[in-house]
């Protein structure tokens, strides 16, 4: 009788040990964490991804586009990139920088703005602002006051390539607003003005296949 009980006990111990060892093995070979495609940050977006930003499109419609270009920019040790694609029959740009957290601006290229539209801003004014870097400077446009923020030379790497093209850029931020005016000058080209709007990076959804 004692031998029978001892045998049963040994069998039970062996079964428990086997379960333990299998569990340890399962824990050691635990599956890698699932790639979370639903939480992709805009900072990780690339060509082929689909971008969706609620309320950032024309007349506050949802902005949806497929990224077909990703350009890189460098200036004074800072680096940022631009996602570009077709939206409502035109090319639009979403700029993404990661200085103090992610910052995203959307340029819908909706209206063409001339330098003269910016409250009579002249080339001499831009030269003066660049020399003084005085952030108390401002201009008037579209019923708002725009504060001079910075001006610097920027290296533009088309399609994130190795060849760069330099240009000069002046940035103005809308006071009490979310818009940014950029005046850009490529060598041998006329001044270009673009209007962007800052959006909450958390609102940007990236859909990847």
């Amino acid at each position: 009788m004692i031998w029978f009980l001892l045998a049963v006990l040994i069998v039970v111990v062996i079964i428990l040990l086997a379960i333990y060892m299998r569990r340890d093995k399962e824990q050691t070979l635990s599956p890698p964490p699932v790639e979370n495609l639903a939480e992709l940050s805009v900072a990780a977006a690339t060509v082929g991804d689909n971008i969706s930003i609620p309320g950032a499109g024309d007349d506050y419609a949802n902005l949806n586009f497929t990224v077909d270009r990703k350009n890189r920019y460098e200036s004074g040790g800072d680096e940022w990139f631009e996602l570009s694609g077709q939206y409502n029959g035109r090319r639009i740009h979403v700029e993404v920088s990661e200085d103090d957290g992610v910052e995203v601006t959307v340029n819908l290229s909706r209206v063409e703005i001339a330098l003269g539209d910016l409250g009579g801003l002249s080339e001499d004014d831009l030269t003066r602002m660049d020399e003084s870097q005085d952030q108390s400077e401002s201009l008037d446009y579209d019923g708002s006051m725009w504060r001079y923020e910075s001006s610097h030379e920027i290296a533009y790497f088309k399609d994130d390539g190795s060849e760069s093209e330099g240009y000069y850029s002046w940035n103005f931020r809308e006071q009490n607003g979310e818009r940014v005016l950029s005046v850009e000058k490529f060598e041998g080209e006329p001044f270009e003005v673009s209007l962007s709007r800052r959006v909450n990076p958390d609102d940007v959804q990236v859909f990847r296949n």
Partner: protein
Amino acid sequence: MNTAIDSIEDATFESTLKQTVRDLKEELNTMVRTSADAMSNHNRLEAEYQKYVRQSDEWKERAKKALEADNEELAKKALAQKAEADRQVASMQTSVDQARETSEKLKQGVTELRRKIAEAERNASTLIARKNAANAQRKVAEALAGVADTDNAFAAINAFEESVARDEAQAKAYESMAGSLDKDLEAEFAELETSEVDDELEALKKEMSQ
């Protein structure tokens, strides 16, 4: 053995919950991929559609310019081109609308599933925490029950101690009994020896008196 079984049950409980959340995330990824496909399709169709809209506008402008230049024939050709672009716009309209609707539905589905998964993850974490808390409580209860067992053990030891004391007392009693027996025996022998001495004394006296 109970501890081992409990431990296995706990691990199974936690891993099952985690696997369920992992499965949901896989499902979400599939939905995101499907949604990305639908968005790409919609964006492609929309771009094509916008191209014909733009062409229609451009042919209209050309027709205007031709009329301004009193070139009615050229204006008619431009309007014929515009009509072709308009036909393309009309034929694509339904496809674009359907693609937009599908894309938006899938995006909403992704948002909804993401919300549900976040909720499920929170619930899973809460369940695991509750399970761990229950296990901890059970262990405390078991430990307290263990204190009761030690009381019984101390009582048993006391009983043993009393038993030993009893044995020791008995032993002492037997020893003392054994001691008194020895004394009696020695007294008898002593008496016996005394009588023998007296006899020898008497014999010696007789021998000397002869």
